[in-house]
């Protein structure tokens, strides 16, 4: 009976054959294709953004690993640098960097004249201005460390200033130099001539990884040494504190705790802590560790503690998942042969869950390594020139951290620091990549499927 009424209601413009699509079908098919394409477009946008992000940061940063250096022979004149001739360090220290600067200037002028490079277009001071202001101090430190160099002629490598460096990396051009008070096109021409003569060249720069931060005026000598060390100290603290505490918490919640209001409260708490903005942890650290407990500002110990608190939820969540993945039969078997509950957990469940726990811990550490907002609040943005000592004293001394160093460099006006900041990002990303690779390898190799 319904058959008849359906026939009546059927559309009149029914196509003759099933093989030709009618307008409605075509519309539906077109909608289907459109929807699919939207999905593809969304994914492409996401991936393109990733590629764009990485290329822009990496492209800017590679320059930081190469540095332009001026290489000249210098005769360390005894009559200037050690008038007494006694090689007494205390006496030699009286010669300031200005004295060494003059020695370098003389050597540079002699070398330029020797190579037939015409410097008449600029003042003598400006020729010297091609070199980093740090050069004189470097030479002084070198001589004071090894007074036997006096009287000899040594080959001295000095960093070129950031503008000359930028010129050979394409960041500074003749046009931009005209507007720049720190460098003139004439100076750049001399630099070019020196480059052609082989006195100036752009080399791989290990100093970027080992030197400490430098002042606003000499970006060419700024390095990541203190930041890497500070980050390493903090990671050690985070590892030492958050792994045992996280594992203990997880064991209690997953294996021991009775199901009641109190454990519910703890669980809700942990879930919420994972979602608290990182800057709020910074405020907590400032109020609790620095104001109340009186720990020093910018110290790795405070940074390590606050990052521990931030990492704990991540580690707890990962550890609980790893403990959950161990099948109950293992526990039952251990209990069956007479182990106590504690023994079954510590002797059997925990070792089996260890790969998962370690993977989660490494991922948590990677998160902590890239975190910067809370560190800004505990004073790690301070300018730190000196390396902190070895632990444990070093944990209380000022240091900085990789991501914070990036932030600090971006706040400076010289564009050379932007290149350094991008270079620091590369270092940070390499560390993150390594940690993630270790986590993946751990998971692949040791994870057991039950």
């Amino acid at each position, binding site marked *: 009976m319904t058959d008849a009424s359906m026939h009546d209601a059927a559309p009149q413009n029914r196509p003759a054959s099933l093989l030709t699509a009618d307008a409605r079908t075509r519309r*539906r098919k077109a*909608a*289907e294709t459109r*929807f*699919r394409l939207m*999905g593809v477009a*969304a*994914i492409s*946008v*996401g*991936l393109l*953004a*990733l590629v*764009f*992000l990485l290329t822009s*940061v990496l492209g800017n940063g590679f320059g930081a690993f190469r540095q332009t250096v001026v290489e000249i022979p210098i005769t360390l004149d005894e009559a200037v640098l050690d008038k007494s001739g006694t090689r007494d360090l205390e006496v030699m220290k009286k010669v300031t960097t200005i004295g060494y600067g003059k020695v370098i200037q003389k050597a540079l002028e002699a070398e330029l004249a020797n190579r037939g490079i015409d410097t008449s277009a600029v003042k003598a001071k400006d020729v010297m201005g091609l070199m980093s202001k740090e050069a004189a101090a470097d030479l002084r430190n070198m001589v004071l460390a090894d007074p036997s160099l006096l009287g000899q002629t040594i080959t001295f490598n000095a960093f070129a200033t950031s503008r000359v460096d930028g010129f050979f990396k394409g960041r500074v051009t003749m046009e931009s130099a005209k507007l720049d008070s720190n460098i003139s096109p004439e100076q750049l021409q001399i630099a070019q001539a020196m480059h052609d003569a082989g006195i100036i060249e752009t080399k791989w720069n290990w100093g970027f990884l080992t030197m400490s931060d430098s002042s606003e005026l000499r970006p060419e000598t700024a390095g990541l040494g203190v930041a890497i060390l500070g980050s390493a100290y903090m990671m050690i603290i985070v590892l030492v504190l958050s792994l045992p505490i996280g594992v*203990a*918490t997880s*064991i209690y*919640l997953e294996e*021991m705790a009775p199901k009641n209001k109190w454990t519910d409260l*703890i669980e809700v*708490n*942990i879930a919420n*802590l994972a*979602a*608290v*903005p*990182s*800057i*709020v942890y*910074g*405020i*907590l650290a*400032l*109020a609790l560790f620095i104001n109340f*407990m*009186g720990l020093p500002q910018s110290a790795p110990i405070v940074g390590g503690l606050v990052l521990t*608190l931030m990492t*704990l*939820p991540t580690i707890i969540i990962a550890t609980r998942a790893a403990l959950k993945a161990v099948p109950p039969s293992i526990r039952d078997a251990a209990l069956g042969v007479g182990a*106590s*509950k504690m023994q079954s957990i510590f002797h059997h469940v925990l070792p089996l869950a260890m790969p998962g726990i370690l993977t989660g811990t490494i991922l948590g550490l990677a998160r902590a390594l*890239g*975190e*910067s*907002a809370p560190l800004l*609040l505990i004073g790690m*943005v301070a300018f730190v020139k000196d390396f902190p000592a070895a632990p*444990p004293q070093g944990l209380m001394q000022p240091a900085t951290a990789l*991501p914070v160093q*990036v*932030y600090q460099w*971006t706040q400076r006006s010289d564009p050379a620091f932007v290149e350094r*900041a991008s270079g620091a*990002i590369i270092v*940070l*990303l390499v560390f*993150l990549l390594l940690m*993630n690779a270790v986590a993946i390898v751990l998971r692949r190799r040791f994870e057991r499927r039950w």
Partner: protein
Amino acid sequence: MSVGLITLIVLGLAVLGFIYGRHRALSAVEGDARHLHSLPSYYGWSVFLFTAVPSLLLMCAWLILQPSIIENRVAALVPEADIAAAGSLNLVMADVRRIAGGIDAMAKEAGLDEAGIDALRADLSDIRGRLAEVGVALGSNVGEPILNAAREFRSLNASMRMAMAVAVIVAAVAGLVFAALRINPALRARNLVEQFVLVLLVSCSMIAVATTVGIIVSLVFESWHFFQLYPAKDFLFSTTWNPKFGGGSSLGIWPLLWGTLYVSFISLIVAAPIGLLAAIYLSEYATPKVRATVKPLLEVLAGIPSIVYGLFALITVGPLLRDWIAVPAGLGDSSSSVMTAGLVMGIMLIPYVSSLSDDIINAVPQAMRDGSFGLGATHSETIKRVVLPAALPGIVGAILLAASRAIGETMIVVMGAGAAAKLSLNPFEAMTTVTVKIVSQLTGDTEFASPETLVAFALGLTLFCFTLALNVLALVIVRKYREQYE
């Protein structure tokens, strides 16, 4: 004695205790472990735990309480006049600490002995100059009472340190002796140790609760301080933000909230559709191979630290938007803008939306899709009419969680959004957010007495409440509206 050394001594004692305890238990039964209640090492562990744990806990408590006790004792020495002159007790105490540190440095570098320190007189010798020599810069000259307070601070510090070392080591030895004397073959050492470990496990899980309590207490406490110095009415209802460190600032939260919400809104406009469509494609259309490569790649976006996004906004996106859109359209000439921060943050949030939505879409039972296909619906119709409605609560939850991240995000807005507190609709103008202002009010040399600094805690409290509310809301929506299949 340094903390590290004390810890080492305590641990050394504990290890000795372990060896002794094990040995004592075994020798009590003449080496035949079958007559012991527990395995021999449990006897050792019981001594180890009783030696190490109480004494180390005592040390931690001491280290936490010591500064405030010393502070109180020393603060009593500072005359009212000095407090009034410096503005607040905190400033005076900061000076006292600095001077004490300076005297320590003088003792180390200039070879000043204790008698020399006692002989220091503020009116006779140039303390400020001598402190400057060892690298301690003071804002004003040192008065005699302040110098005395600093001296007292030093000596109290030293004696408390010594007292702590003695107390901790005595506690360790007492624990060792107590536990060692209890050892006899009938002692239920395993139960004892396991009870102890259980207590340790419980107290570790308390740390999570303590962190939350710490966050709330510190935020509320300092905010309360702030509201005593600055009327809450102005903070909550004023539309100007203009901190002046001389006083007389207006600290209205609205410009900051507006900036925060505007940036978050733009970032969600970017992230929600892209993330959702990507999740739909990955879970419904993509072949397993495509899914296995694309999903981790998208999740890389979530693993990149926010400082990298900040730099991206600062050096690439900001100038790009300014030169290609804002300046030609006459909308502004600032490279840091709401749009810059919003776009970059949107990119960061894509994987948050996509991963969560992906899980939720996958949780919709296959039977529902099959039913829809059986009725003749196309794939996209099935998704739009069946799968998405079923997954909607979860997706809304995912977007709310992304919003809470956006509101709390700091580095991207610090580097990309600017610092000018404005109420404006133009997305190409620099605006500022709550998190930016927390950073700018709390970095640098801060003394916790002025409303300009303390306002950061009130801002932090606001931020905390906002994100907490969003998270709870997300949870409630997911729990309440989730369709229970199966």
